[in-house]
């Protein structure tokens, strides 16, 4: 154990009592996942349900929203509030939900295409807004649902798609570096093949006050079978987490993109849209909307 120990230890200290009353399966719905057997997303589902159980978050106080893509099926497989939105719009949905219902633990989830291409602009502004959200991106470097096209994180010379027979020729999107530049206050990288290690990152992300971005390397065994090699290539990012943006920039740039752990963590003011959790509990829907409108029309 090295990276992320601070956050993990803080959480463990608060949960020292006997075994939790809720189990991971209490957060799973009856809907059967249609992901291919061997898909990395199963590891993310397992890690997220274990995290919610460990933190003993009541299912009715958790909302998971998503965009479009294989990974965005996640809300259907969970027995918490869920919303399967439109392509690339997971963060606007999550932002609106958290503004209207600040008492909820809001988790946004999606894939690399959904989050970094179609929703790329929302990603930048969610990072700098620093609302108290957790954003999980399951990155398999391919559009899997539409049967295997290059995504923003695909290597420039990947040429297995007929759409890009000579590769994309473009440099890859750098999720952690861009999140840092855009002002995210928590950045972590996990691996779907290590669900318990990922649980630690997700627990730290959910507990982090502000926008927490968790970049998960989640192999697609169908269209990117070579990603099975990640199991041997991922490694602990020994130097993190950085608490200073300049140090984090150096850490991220020096890393090979396969370093796992909390890369950056900083406590900065959280955007609340002017409605506190306690106040929101007592407001009617109209009053809540009026409060939000007043906040934004100042």
């Amino acid at each position, binding site marked *: 154990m090295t990276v992320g120990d601070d956050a993990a230890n803080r959480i463990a200290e608060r949960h*020292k009592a006997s075994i939790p009353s809720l189990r991971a399966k209490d957060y799973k719905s009856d809907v059967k996942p249609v992901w291919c*057997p*061997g898909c*990395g997303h199963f590891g993310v589902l397992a890690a997220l349900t274990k995290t919610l159980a460990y933190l003993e978050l009541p299912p009715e106080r958790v909302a998971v929203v998503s965009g479009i893509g294989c990974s965005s099926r996640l809300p259907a497989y969970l027995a918490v509030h869920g919303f399967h939105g439109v392509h690339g719009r997971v963060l606007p949905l999550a932002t609106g939900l958290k503004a209207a219902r600040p008492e909820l633990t809001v988790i946004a989830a999606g894939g690399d295409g959904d989050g970094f291409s179609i929703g790329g602009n929302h990603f930048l502004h969610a990072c700098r807004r620093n609302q108290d959200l957790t954003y999980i991106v399951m990155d398999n470097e391919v559009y899997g649902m539409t049967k295997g096209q290059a995504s923003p994180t695909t290597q420039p010379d990947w040429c297995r798609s007929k759409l890009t027979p000579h590769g994309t020729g473009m440099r890859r999107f750098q999720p952690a570096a861009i999140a840092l530049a855009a002002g995210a206050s928590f950045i972590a990288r996990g691996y779907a*093949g290590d669900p318990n290690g990922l649980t630690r990152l997700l627990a730290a992300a959910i507990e982090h006050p502000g926008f927490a971005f968790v970049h998960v390397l989640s192999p697609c065994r169908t269209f990117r079978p070579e990603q099975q090699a990640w199991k*041997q290539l991922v490694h*602990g990012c020994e130097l993190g987490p950085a608490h200073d943006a300049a140090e984090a920039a150096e850490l991220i740039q020096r890393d090979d993109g396969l370093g796992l752990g909390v890369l950056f963590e900083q406590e900065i003011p959280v955007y609340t849209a002017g409605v506190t959790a306690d106040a929101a509990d007592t407001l009617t829907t109209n009053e809540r909307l009026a409060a939000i409108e007043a906040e934004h029309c100042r």
Partner: protein
Amino acid sequence: MSPPAAPAASDTVIASVAELLAHALELEYASQAHYEQLADSMAVHHNVDVADLFRRLAALSGQHAEDVAKHAGDMTLPRIPPWAFKWECPDAPEGSDCLDANVSYQMSTTEAIAVALHNERRGHAYYLHVAASATDAEARRLASTMAAEEAQHVALLESMLTAAGGSQRSAPEDLDPPHIPD
């Protein structure tokens, strides 16, 4: 972060019966969840026989979890964060290797038994390790008993594998193959 680095030797030593039971409970819950997930996947892909096999294995793991819980009785088990269990693999020894290259939606019953056998062998090896390394004598004794039970499961699956070896059937029809379109 924990991922590929193996924990130090002291991180894998069980110190009490309560700690062992907490690990055993997690191991069985993880096993049950793993088999349920595989059963669901196979059912979605119309691989009915294999789905049924994994469903039965999940039920057995659930039964084992109940047995462990009964054994714990009124004992207060320690609350262990998911990332701090004392095993060297990323998940519980009988839990999910969600990226298992041997798992496919078109897998045969024989291949499914082989996956289960691999898991049971990992569980057996884990209890043998605890039986040899726990600092508490009662925990070592209990771990030996659990290892003996796991050895029975391994033997049963080995005999099932031998029996199923000659009766391979063709893979279920794939109505929507996941190939990149031309």
